């Protein structure tokens, strides 16, 4: 039981990176990014190739995957998302949805559906802490994920650009009147969100296989976490993600190996049924 909680908490840290990205984009740009999971997948493949080609440690390759995905984020904002801002639901939903399909199927064509794994020196190592087994790779992922989340929080609250992003998420029109350039803020938000997804991918690589469909699991997790926490709220998404990780892990422990996702979805649907008022962001846009 305690072991399952630890496992869930550790993987929840990685979910948090994905959820924070989704919630950041939603908060600032008011768009739900269906393609967020595919950017995790890109991060994983970057780390996989850097490891197999140059022997670079996946955690170190974060230094490559994050900037690459930041740039992709800025490009996605500039060439795609900018063009559907202010339009109705249909283009906003289906643009990122189409992007997700496109990246996923391109990956399928380029890399095939095979599972790719990376075996690092610490992939099998575990720590024994008071009767609990803590896998080192997951622990590293968790710690780095928390550092990145904390870094983002500090960025949003102390820097001018971070404050501008929070202002734009609270009221876009007023922010614009205060001299904040929305396009620049949106580009940075997309960049950061995708960089976090890339980081999640790199951190997963030592203990999680990369395959084209891998992102779908993470993006669904992220949606649930984002809906459970308040939308657009970074801390809410973080806490909800950790809880989701634990819920999934307990589901696997008590119902069966393939039941983690059932628990997650049921959690989402029960939340919708019991506490629709908690989903204020989902009702009003």
């Amino acid at each position: 039981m305690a072991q399952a909680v630890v496992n869930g908490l550790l993987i929840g840290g990685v979910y948090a990176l994905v959820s924070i990205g989704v919630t950041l984009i939603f908060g600032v740009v008011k768009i739900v990014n269906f393609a967020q999971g595919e950017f995790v997948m890109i991060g994983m493949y970057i780390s996989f190739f850097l490891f197999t080609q140059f022997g670079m440690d996946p955690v170190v390759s974060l230094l490559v995957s994050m900037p690459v995905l930041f740039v992709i984020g800025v490009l996605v904002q500039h060439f795609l998302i900018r063009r559907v801002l202010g339009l109705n639901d249909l283009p906003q939903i289906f643009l990122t949805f189409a992007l997700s399909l496109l990246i996923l199927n391109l990956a399928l064509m380029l890399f095939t559906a095979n599972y790719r794994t990376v075996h690092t020196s610490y992939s099998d190592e575990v720590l024994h802490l008071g009767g609990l087994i803590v896998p080192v790779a997951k622990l590293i992922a968790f710690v780095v994920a928390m550092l990145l989340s904390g870094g983002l929080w500090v960025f949003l609250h102390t820097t001018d650009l971070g404050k501008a992003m929070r202002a734009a998420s609270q009221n876009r029109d007023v922010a614009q009147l205060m001299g904040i350039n929305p396009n620049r803020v949106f580009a940075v938000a997309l960049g950061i969100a995708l960089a976090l997804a890339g980081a999640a991918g790199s951190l997963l690589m030592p203990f999680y296989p990369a395959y084209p469909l891998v992102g779908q699991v993470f993006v669904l997790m992220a949606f649930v976490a984002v809906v459970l926490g308040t939308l657009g709220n970074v801390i809410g998404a973080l806490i909800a993600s950790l809880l989701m990780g634990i819920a999934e892990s307990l589901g696997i422990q008590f119902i069966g190996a393939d039941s983690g996702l059932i628990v997650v979805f049921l959690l989402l649907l029960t939340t919708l049924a019991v506490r629709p008022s908690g989903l204020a962001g989902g009702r009003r846009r």
Partner: protein
Amino acid sequence: MRLRGRGGIALGVGIAVMAVLPLVVKNAFAVDICIRILLFAFIGTAWNLLGGYAKQLSLGHAAFFGLGAYTSTLLQIDFGISPWIGMAAGGVVGMLASLPIGWLCFRLRGPYFAIATIATAQVLMLIFLKFRDFAWGAEGTTIPNLGNAPLMMQFDGKAPYYYIVLCLLALALAITAWVERSRIGYYLVAIGEDEDAAEAIGIDVPRVKRNIYMISSFLTALAGTFYTQYIYFIDPQTAFNFSVSIEAALVSIVGGIGTLWGPLIGTILLETTSALLQSWLGNSIGGVQLTVYSLILMAVILWKPTGIMGYVSELTRRRRGKAAGS
């Protein structure tokens, strides 16, 4: 008036061509493509009732497809009941399932509605994967082949399947045409434009959405039964496949969302493209079809969100405007 007459002639010719097609085309591959086109046009037309007119962008129609498929197959294999009856039963099951699903998902709007519908379809798939004593689990099952047994919806050639799905499509189009002309159609469009405003002018929004969701799910479930009978196989992955949900929305958007003929036009374009790609590249590379689909979808969204039908009506309007001006 003249235009309407011309439209009537076009419709008559279209129906005649569709009716004799399997008599002329003997190539099994070509007939198979025609069946796929009609099937997905049917599912798209069903989706369009909810997604196109009321703008409730569901990405979980696979739920009803799968329920229809499993209902008729369970009835056939466990009780020996003909899939013809099973199809109707599956439709009713799908329709009833839309009540709790709609109760949950209609609390949400826009992207959250879409996400919630994805979740319901996925939960159903996971349930059918998990509980193997109930419905064969992940392995699925084949439908016993009885040779030529029309009463059990099994036929020697492909032509009868073609006519069945043609009738289904005609049914869905007839329902859509009726909805377009009736009061509920105007309610749906009003809801699609602005839900709050529709509520404010006295439309019972939850009821209208519930009713159209029931019709849409009923039709989608019929498609599930047909598909299982056509391929003689069922498992949770095919029955609740996410790509069914995707394609239902995709053909409508590409063809023209909220129009009678949009889903059919969209399916003809997408499925023909896919068939050409397949015969050109072969089946060897996975992902080609959806890569092309997603590019088409992006292009439509960025340049013509009203789809092909929107573009056509714009052209006609422009031509008419010119004629009036001169």
